[in-house]
């Protein structure tokens, strides 16, 4: 299974590197969103809860972009049959797609967080970097698993572009809540870790439940 998942992942990354469709779009969207927030909120610098909220809402919306495109190559070029014909465990498709999404998010954050720090964030994110990275790592896992699941769920539906955000965003609300509350004290005027443990636990719970669930249920989405 891992061999097949690695092969599919590699193929996806190859295509992404060549066409550069998902990650640059996510990054561009995020920076644009920061600019919009500056004008919308009429603020030069954000800290605390406001800073946290703006960042996470932006990241979540950027995730929607990536999820919409997750199976795009399979849909557009008839590749899904190709995957279904192969003697592979179909869970490999899920693992590959979720991992790809995780990597895209990580790359996005590599660009978006420094951009955020420059444009809008008051306190420096470097102050509590390990905590911030931990929150990002855990949130990305939840986003990736649920994102891959919703991508597959909406893949065959009509009006797919509408269905993805409508399905995805409510499902990701707990991630938003936990991540935003967790980073709130990290972005405070005097950064500190606050209730980090509690929120990390919530993220962990969410990740565990949805990772197991997605793996269990994904096969049913690909059969016919």
């Amino acid at each position: 299974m891992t061999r097949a998942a690695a092969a599919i992942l590699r193929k996806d990354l190859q295509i992404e590197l060549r066409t550069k469709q998902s990650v640059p779009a996510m990054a561009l969207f995020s920076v644009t969103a920061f600019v919009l927030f500056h004008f919308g909120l009429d603020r030069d610098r954000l800290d605390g809860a406001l800073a946290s909220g703006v960042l996470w809402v932006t990241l979540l919306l950027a995730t929607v972009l990536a999820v919409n495109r997750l199976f795009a190559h399979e849909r557009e070029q008839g590749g899904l049959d190709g995957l279904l014909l192969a003697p592979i465990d179909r869970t490999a498709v899920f693992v590959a797609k979720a991992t790809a999404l995780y990597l895209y998010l990580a790359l996005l954050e590599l660009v978006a967080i420094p951009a955020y720090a420059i444009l809008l964030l008051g306190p420096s994110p470097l102050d509590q970097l390990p905590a911030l990275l931990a929150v990002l790592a855990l949130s990305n896992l939840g986003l990736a698993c649920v994102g891959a699941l919703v991508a597959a769920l909406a893949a065959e539906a009509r009006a797919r572009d509408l269905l993805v955000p409508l399905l995805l965003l409510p499902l990701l609300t707990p991630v938003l809540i936990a991540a935003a509350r967790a980073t709130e004290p990290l972005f405070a005027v005097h950064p500190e870790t606050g209730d980090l443990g509690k929120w990390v636990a919530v993220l962990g719970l969410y990740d565990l439940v949805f990772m197991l669930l997605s793996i269990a249920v994904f096969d049913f989405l690909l059969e016919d």
Partner: protein
Amino acid sequence: MLYGKRLAPLAFTTAALFALALGLIFFYAPLEADQGFMQKIFYLHVPMAIVALCGFVAGGILAIQHLRTGERKWDVRSYVAIHLSIILGLGVLVTGSIWARASWGHWWLWDEPMLVSFLIIFLLYCCYQPLRFSIEDPERQGRYASVFAITAGAFVPVNFIAVRLAEQYTHPRVLSETGGSMPGEMRLTFLVSLVAMAFLFVTLWKIELTSKNASDQLRKLRRRLEGTAEDEGPEPVAEPVGAVN
């Protein structure tokens, strides 16, 4: 499938329980000092919420059975449970809003974790029927719907935990009333309302299943009359209104 059998006594019991509940609500339960008469909506609002949440989770469990056995009847049961819970959910939001307005002057309260997590869950489940309608192949429709039902069903408790934790800074008003110090009269009224609501749900569920079953049999008969082979294939559980039947 003999759904109709116990339907009559069930319906009667439900009606009786509801009558009892309403009687208790209006005549027995005490008038709450600071919230006044409108507080009584709480006896509808909270049971509705609890039953709806159970309905969603039940829908998820029924969906698991559907995926495990592949039998369409589980899919239909799951669909009906969820679809009834969505309607109840709307009721929860409306009654919650009325209560909030009457008691605290606002049409919406963010520090009411029940209300807030319900909003999120309701928004999520609103996608259930559009998702079903947008997939034409009936077998696939059932499978995808079950996947959704399971995912959303697992989501309900996780969401509730997250929202509860997020709003810990203000007291959850509902829970302080249901939690510890409910006086005996309130408690009795509440419990009866809860049971009545649960019975209502099950009755409506059975009614809808019976009607779906009847239209299925009709379809099978028609197909047999038209001379098509003995049919073992699936039919879509949900069809957009106006589809040829």
